[in-house]
Structures are given as C-alpha cells and as structure tokens.
C-alpha cells in the first residue's frame, strides 16, 4: 500500500478536539497513506465529523499533532485546502442557483480560470450523471441528486485527497451504488479517500483500512477482513426461541460451544468457527430453537461488539 519512506498523506498523533470542557476527539493516532481508502466508523457522536473538520483545516486542533500532506493545518490551511475536496455531512449547496452555477461559483473560490471551470463542470456533471439537470435549480432536487452534486462540486479542484462525511446517508440503494462506483473510480485514478459512514457494507465495499471510533477514541483499526478475524468469528449462529423461554438459562447450556454467546432480547448469537457443528451440539444439549440462521461474521458484529448495543445519544 505505502512504499517504505513515503510519508503518510495524513498523520495524527494524540489528536484531540475539545469544545469547552467537552472532549469530542480524545487523543487519537492514525496514518492515511497516499492512494488508499480510509474509513472512520462510529456511532452518533463518536467524533467522526470533528476529526474530518480538523483534517480539512476548518476546525483548529485542540491538542496533539496533525500533518496533512506534510503541512500543519494551523499555518497552511489555505494551501492544504487547495488540494483537498470536502463532502460535508450537511449539504452546503446554494439552493437558489442552478446545478451548473453551483459548480462555477465553487470553482472560483479556488481561483481556477473560468474556462477551466466550465470544462471541468461539463465532465463532472457527466461523472455524477447530472448533465440533464445542469440548468435546473438545486432546490427541487432530491437528496440523492444533491449528494451527487456535492460530490461533483468537491472534485472541481481535482483534489489529491477527498474527505467524505457520510457520503451516502439518506440515499436509496441505486444512488448509493452509483456513488460507490464513482468513488471506486476516483480511487483507481489515485485519489486518496477518507470517509465516515454508519454503513458496514459501505465500509467493506470502499475501505482498504478503517478505524472504529467510540466516544472520541479509536476502538480498533485494520482492514475489514482483519477486524472480522480479530474481533469476531468466521461464522455466527442465530437461535430464536419462544417468547417465554429464559434466554440466559439457555445461554448457560451452550457454555463451551463456540467462542462466545451473546444474549439478545429476541435471540441468542453464538460466535463460532463452524456454525453447523455448533447447531448440532446445541441440539444434542437439548435446545430446541423455533428457528435458526447460519451466517458469516460481519463487520457489523465487530462494530456492535466494540461499541455496544445501546444507543449512543
């Protein structure tokens, strides 16, 4: 992924963000290498947006060090942002302007020549499949179209680094798949992607490496595969019983079967390398579930294990 000696594109050490007395990002360390797709996963309020805003040099670092493209955001903000594209969590499009004018105006902020902006605008509208809507106002556009426009807009300066804060939240499956495909294309062109998401499938699809954040800290780091291998089992057996069955008692009976049993209000989850064998053993021990499901361990299992099942806020 990274050539030895190639400095990371983003390097954070003890990176901290405080709002008054509240610690939103609590001393995190990470490196993002040139050309990779790096993800921040975490429940609401984990500190993902706060981290992204610091990387985008839009929010000052409270403590620790941060280097983006080898530069210090505190002193080189405009230079860093000139080479960086941002897709913010909340759209900041001008609803009264047309799709095309949104791109033109944004390109001017980067001091790009008008002719070049017009050229890139045509390409980007094509890229985001917005050509037909080019002269429509943004106001009546659906959330999915707006999101695609925001992504197109972030590319007007042909950035080396693209920051995407929940790029597909609120989009329908078709729109999400289109966005994924376009982001994958950018990655192939050598653009470094840093994204936050609540979607495990998005993280698995797009991210070479990711960190799981919880309450301002990094709970785990690795590739999706590594995280599953480390924090979960190959397979998961889900057992459902009747409403009157005592789940905890049933879980006790499964002691030793698989590596871990999790008791949920509506079912038992048995983490194991071999779910079929575990099911046979459960039956041998006298358990008779109403229904069961054998599935692979997923990133979602890792996420829930590390960040807990209770709501964040």
């Amino acid at each position, binding site marked *: 992924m990274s050539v030895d000696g190639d400095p990371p594109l983003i390097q954070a050490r003890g990176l901290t963000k405080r709002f008054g007395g509240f610690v939103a990002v609590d001393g995190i360390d990470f490196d993002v290498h040139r050309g990779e797709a790096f993800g921040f996963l975490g429940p609401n309020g984990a500190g993902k947006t706060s981290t992204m805003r610091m990387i985008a040099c839009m*929010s000052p670092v409270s403590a620790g060090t941060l280097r983006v493209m080898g530069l210090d955001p505190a002193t080189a903000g405009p230079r860093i942002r000139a080479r960086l594209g941002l897709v*913010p969590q909340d759209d900041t499009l*001008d609803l009264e302007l047309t799709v095309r004018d949104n791109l033109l105006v944004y390109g001017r*902020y980067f001091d790009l020549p008008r002719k070049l902006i017009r050229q890139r605008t045509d390409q980007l509208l094509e890229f985001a499949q917005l050509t037909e809507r080019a002269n429509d106002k943004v106001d009546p556009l659906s959330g999915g179209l707006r999101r695609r426009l925001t992504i197109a807009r972030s590319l007007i300066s042909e950035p080396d680094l693209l920051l995407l804060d929940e790029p597909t939240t609120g989009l329908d499956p078709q729109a999400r798949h289109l966005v994924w495909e376009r982001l994958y294309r950018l990655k192939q062109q050598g653009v470094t992607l840093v994204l936050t998401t609540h979607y495990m499938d998005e993280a698995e699809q797009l991210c070479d490496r990711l960190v799981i954040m919880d309450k301002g800290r990094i709970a785990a780091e690795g590739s999706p595969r590594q995280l599953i291998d480390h924090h979960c089992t190959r397979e998961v057996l889900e057992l459902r019983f009747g409403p009157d069955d005592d789940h905890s008692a049933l879980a006790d009976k499964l002691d030793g079967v698989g590596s871990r049993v999790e008791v949920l209000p509506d079912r038992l989850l048995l983490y194991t390398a071999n779910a079929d064998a575990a099911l046979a053993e459960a039956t041998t021990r006298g358990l008779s579930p109403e229904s069961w499901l054998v599935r692979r361990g997923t990133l979602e299992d890792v996420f829930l294990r590390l960040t807990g099942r209770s709501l964040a806020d």
Partner: protein
Amino acid sequence: MSTRPAIRSLAYWTYQYRRTWRATLASGFLMPVLYLTAMGLGLGSLVNRHAAPTRLGGVSYLVFLAPGLMAAAAMQSATMESTWPVMGGIKWTKTYHAMLATPLRVSDVLYGHVCWMALKVSLVSTIFLGVMAAFGAPRSPEVVLAVPVAVLTGLAYATPFAGFVATRQSDQPIIAIYRFLIIPMFLFSGTFFPVSQLPAAIRPLAYVTPLWHGVSLCRALSLGDATPAAALGHVAYLVALTVIGLAIARRTFASRLAA
C-alpha cells in the same frame, strides 16, 4: 495573476445578485420616489407653509429631507444585508461553510461579504442620488460626495450587526434590531426634523447614533454648507464604528465558523 481571496468570496455575492437585481433595482427607485413625493412634496407643502423658515435652515422641506433620507436608506439597506444573509451564510444556505472548505479563510469570507454590503449600499445610494436630483433637491454639486458618506454610514451599521448576528442562534434578535434600533433611529436621528427639536435631555442619544452623523454630513454636502472640520468629525466617527465593528466581527466569525 491570482485574484485576492476576499474578492473571490465577494464574487459569490455579486453572482447570486444576478438572480434578484431587477426586483431590488425597482424598489431602489420606487422607495425614494414614494418617500420624496409623499413626505417631501405632500407633507412638505404643509411644513413650508407653517414652519418658521429658519428652523430648516431656510430651505424647503424637500431639500431638507432628501439628503437625510438618503443616509437613512443606506442604514436600512446595510442592515438588511448584514443580518439575514449573515445568519443564512452560517445556518441556512451555509454559504460560509462552503467557502471555508476551499482555500478561503474566515477573514476572506467576512471581508468579501462586507465588500458586497458596501457595493450594495453604493448602488442604493447612487440610485437615491439620481431620484433626488430629479426632484431638484440638491443645492450643491458636492452632493455627489454624499454617496460615499452614505456608504460609510451603512458600514458603521453593517459591521457591528454582522459581528453580532454571528453570535446568535436564531433570527429573533434580528427582528429586535429592527424594532428597537433601526425604527427609532430612522425616526429620531434628524432625518425628518432637526435633532434640535428634540427635548434637550434626549438629544445626546441622537448624537451618538451613526445615522445622525450620516444625515448631518449628507445634508451639509447637499446644501453646500459643509465645513472641513465638521465633515472630518463625522467621517472619523463613522470610520471608527466601522473598524470596531469589523474587529468584533472577525472574532465572532472565527469563533462561530472555525470552532
């Protein structure tokens, strides 16, 4: 050649103005025409008949009123541009945030917007001057200098208001600005009658308003009796308020936008 960052953020405001320029130009003409007709000519015919001529400096009410209204219109236009659009840039359209994701800095965003406010007030004031001239109100060619004075009057309001709005969460305080600051100042800062007509106890209140300084200087320029010392005093006061407002806005914008 690179374009200065603040000019790039100004470009946004001029660009979006292309959407609304017809409506605002039309009202820019209509308002002075209506006011000068109703108050300058209509009400003025009564005033001219009944007031002792020395009370208005020996000129007709229209001649007295027009330059004062020009300063007041500048105040209103500047207030309009420095309140809702600032809240919008922060909270509604989030234009400021869009700009700040690019090489522009908070100060560029602020200066660009303040430049736009100045441009908009110049436009309104220039139109006002034209209407005023059509009514035959100016008594001296120095009246053209009333346009920059009106712009400065506007900025003395715009910069502190922008700085204040950046600290607020809703537009309720903006409504309060209009109710408790703009309307009283519009009525009592010498636009419609000389401040000397106010009870002595509250006169000093009128003297501290930026509008009184703007009205006084615009009127003196229009009548052709401006003295350098008085002009300098008014300008210095308005510049001071503008600069203080800008310093405040720099801080409040930074703490709101780069948190």
